[in-house]
């Protein structure tokens, strides 16, 4: 840490210590799951461990995982970039509507997407089914950053390319696409991590991934070594994705130079392409939104008023709300120190701690849950099967979401206000709480909304860690679909979608606002 023997500066450095300590504690907690994997691997012994890791089944799962990523990600990139280009940079009719429809699938949890598809096509399964449903469920994660990026591009570069004699296609591939690299890499990483972590979607579509295999092992032997070793391989897959993304991101410069503001991009005329473009947008919306809503509607009509058993439905709804709010509050509270530090006191230690916050969010729920189950049952029994443990799991899974929302808001608060408050006699802690945090309230709200959405749709960690008697919308939906009672499951799915819609709307408007429009 920067230590200058200067009374004035030291007074500004000292208040950081408790914050650094708090952030360090959170960082240490976030190391728990990986520490657990290493610990359990050592405990298992190299012979057993290698017998459980180097076996044909793991090979199969690796191939499945690889194929899933290799098809889904490029497909999502192609779809999102096309849609983003059409909605942002062309005279497509109803562009705003299509833009909203390209984000809306996020409001439907992935396992509700698959529920809709297997209701419609009971034979849909395997790699094809997995790729199809994953693409439809997750492509908005790419559409959001790519369209935001497209909106901010300086058209001058395209003009320069065109003036050098390049046609519109060449301009797109050589001048526009390279500038979307960061957005594409970031979005792809997000999708890749979701593909590794998703459970419900692939169980319904009958496609084995590491996550489904771990849950199979968990159900056959609780937290046996086989489950833990598969978890270890899955963690390595996540790290490989993170590394790959860091490599693909590159170090190019993307900021524009020159004076003044970029002019507004010109809208390309689609001409005869207008019809196929509209068809593509409509087809995507039909598959990603039409299928879930129509099947959901069909089951609801079939079930009539009988499936609205208000007792259990209300109880599940209430519990989901409580978990979502409490989890969101805890997660936000845990990220405040880090968010504040990364704005006010960036440095090497801060970067390492921040990396810890981000990495843990890339881990699948099943790995975090497996670690917490074993740790609590073996060494922290009072915490076993308690709400506290489940909330901690949620916090670990959703730290990055919270950090992203908070940091941006804190960065907008001038440090001078904090200093003025201290000069007027407030203690540093009170200054931060009363000035900075108050002004950062929108960020807190965004963070809570994002985390709450994640918790509402969380399945695996909830199944494994929840206290006795817990029923959330997601677990209840899951229990009913496991008995192929698709009709009774429909109201739960509907409630999850309704709870997710406002947050999806928030994401959409935020991405618009980011571009200043």
């Amino acid at each position, binding site marked *: 840490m920067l230590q200058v023997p200067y009374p004035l500066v030291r007074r500004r450095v000292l208040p950081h210590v408790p914050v650094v300590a708090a952030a360090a504690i959170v960082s240490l907690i976030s190391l728990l799951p990986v520490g657990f994997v290493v610990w359990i691997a050592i405990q298992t012994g190299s012979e057993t461990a290698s017998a459980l890791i180097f076996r044909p089944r793991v090979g199969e799962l690796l191939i499945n995982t690889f194929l899933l990523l290799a098809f889904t990600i490029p497909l999502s990139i192609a779809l999102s970039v096309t849609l983003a280009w059409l909605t942002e940079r062309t005279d497509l009719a109803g562009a705003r509507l299509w833009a909203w429809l390209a984000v809306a699938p996020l409001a439907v949890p992935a396992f509700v997407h698959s529920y809709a598809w297997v209701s419609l096509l009971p034979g849909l399964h395997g790699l094809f089914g997995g790729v199809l449903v994953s693409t439809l469920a997750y492509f908005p994660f790419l559409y959001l950053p790519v369209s935001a990026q497209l909106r901010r591009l300086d058209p001058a570069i395209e003009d320069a390319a065109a003036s050098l004699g390049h046609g519109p296609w060449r301009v797109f591939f050589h001048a526009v696409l390279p500038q979307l690299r960061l957005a594409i890499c970031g979005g792809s990483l997000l999708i890749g991590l979701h593909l590794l972590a998703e459970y419900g979607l692939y169980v319904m579509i009958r496609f084995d991934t590491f996550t489904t295999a771990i849950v199979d*092992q968990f159900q056959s032997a609780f937290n*046996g070594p086989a489950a833990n070793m598969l978890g270890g391989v899955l963690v390595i897959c996540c790290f490989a994705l993170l590394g790959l993304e860091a490599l693909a991101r590159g170090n190019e410069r993307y900021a524009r130079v020159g004076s003044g503001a970029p002019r507004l991009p010109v809208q390309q005329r689609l001409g005869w392409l207008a019809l196929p473009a509209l068809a593509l947008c409509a087809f995507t919306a039909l598959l990603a939104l039409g299928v879930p809503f129509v099947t959901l509607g069909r089951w609801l009509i079939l079930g009539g008023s009988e499936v609205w058993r208000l007792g259990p439905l209300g109880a599940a709804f209430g519990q989901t709300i409580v978990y979502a709010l409490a989890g969101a509050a805890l997660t936000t509270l845990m990220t405040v120190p880090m968010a504040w530090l990364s704005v006010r006191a960036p440095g090497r230690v801060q970067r390492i701690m921040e990396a810890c916050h981000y990495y843990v969010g890339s881990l699948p729920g099943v790995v975090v849950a497996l670690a917490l189950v074993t740790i609590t049952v073996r060494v922290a029994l009072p915490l076993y099967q308690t*709400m*506290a443990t489940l909330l901690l799991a949620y916090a670990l899974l959703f730290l990055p979401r919270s950090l992203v929302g908070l940091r941006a808001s804190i960065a907008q608060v001038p440090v001078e206000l904090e200093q003025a408050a201290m000069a007027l006699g407030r203690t540093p802690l009170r200054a931060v709480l009363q000035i900075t*945090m108050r002004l950062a309230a*929108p960020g807190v709200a965004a963070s809570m909304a994002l985390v709450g959405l994640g918790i509402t749709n969380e399945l695996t960690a909830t199944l494994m860690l929840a206290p*006795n008697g817990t029923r959330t919308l997601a677990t209840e939906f899951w*229990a009913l679909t496991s008995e192929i009672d698709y009709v009774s499951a429909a109201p739960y799915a509907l409630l999850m979608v309704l709870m997710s819609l406002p947050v999806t709307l928030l994401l959409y408007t935020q991405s618009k606002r980011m571009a200043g429009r």
Partner: protein
Amino acid sequence: MKMSFQHLAATLALVAGLAGSTALASAQSASDGIVVYNAQHESLTKAWADGFTKQTGIKVTIRNGKDMEFANQIVQEGAASPADVFLTENSPAMALVDGAGLFEPLNADTLAQVPENYRPANGHWVGVAARSTVFAYDKNKLTEDKLPKSLLDLADASWKGRWGAAPAGADFQAIVSAVLELKGEEATAAWLKAMKENATPYKGNSVAMKAVNAGEIEGAVIYHYYYYGDQAKTGENSKNVSLHYFKNEDPGAFVSISGGGIPASSKHKEQAQAFLKWVTGKGGQAVLRDGDSFEYAVGEGEAANAKLVPLADLNAPKVEPSKLNSKKVTDLMTAAGLL
């Protein structure tokens, strides 16, 4: 989105309070009733719990999971286990907990309600229901003469790609444990290896039956009640399906006993004993006879649902339920690449 700091703080406080009080409330509910670790179908246990609560006023909190998950969990929890009753779909999970010496002996009047062949000799747990292995087949594709004579015939290369099962489920693993007990380790390992080649794995028996119905596979090794349950509802998932009972004391005619036991660590042993007495008694067995679970009743003199083939006609192999070795089964299945 304007929100003042006071509002925010108030909201956070409210949330914390709400969360705290519900956590407290759920802790409360656990202390004045019993906790059931339930691996049975939730609807069946729910019906049992409701009937029991109605009669005795004792509250029942159900935690849902799978046979072997809970069995291993109870072993790990040891003396700290919050479970007062453990209900399974199959016997191997019971055998595992009993093998670890973690069951409380059951009251004699409970045991007396169930014939000896549906409970282990030591009386540490008791059968609460039973289910029979069947080969559910597509009646449009297979005629009776083309059906497998034995479960072991499905290892034959001629069956490649034609049948399915749910290998990750406790149900199928119980069937494998019967094969292991009847035919030995070597034959079981070979059969599982052939199964990896021949069979399509499904997640759950109902999904496997649905696949038979849709014509994806010709037959599936599942339990009998999935068929009857679907027939009683819409019949939509079983209209092309017929059941083949292997009989002849074949491993494929294995009748699996669902068990109930009381972890020795239970702090509500009296209520737990009352619960198992109720489940194995008139009230609990009537739920099996009249409800839509279609599992066999096992109580002394209790008739099964009239739609089912009587248990006595199934000609099941004699297997001592307490000898079923689940650990060996998961190891063999992991080695065969099925898990």
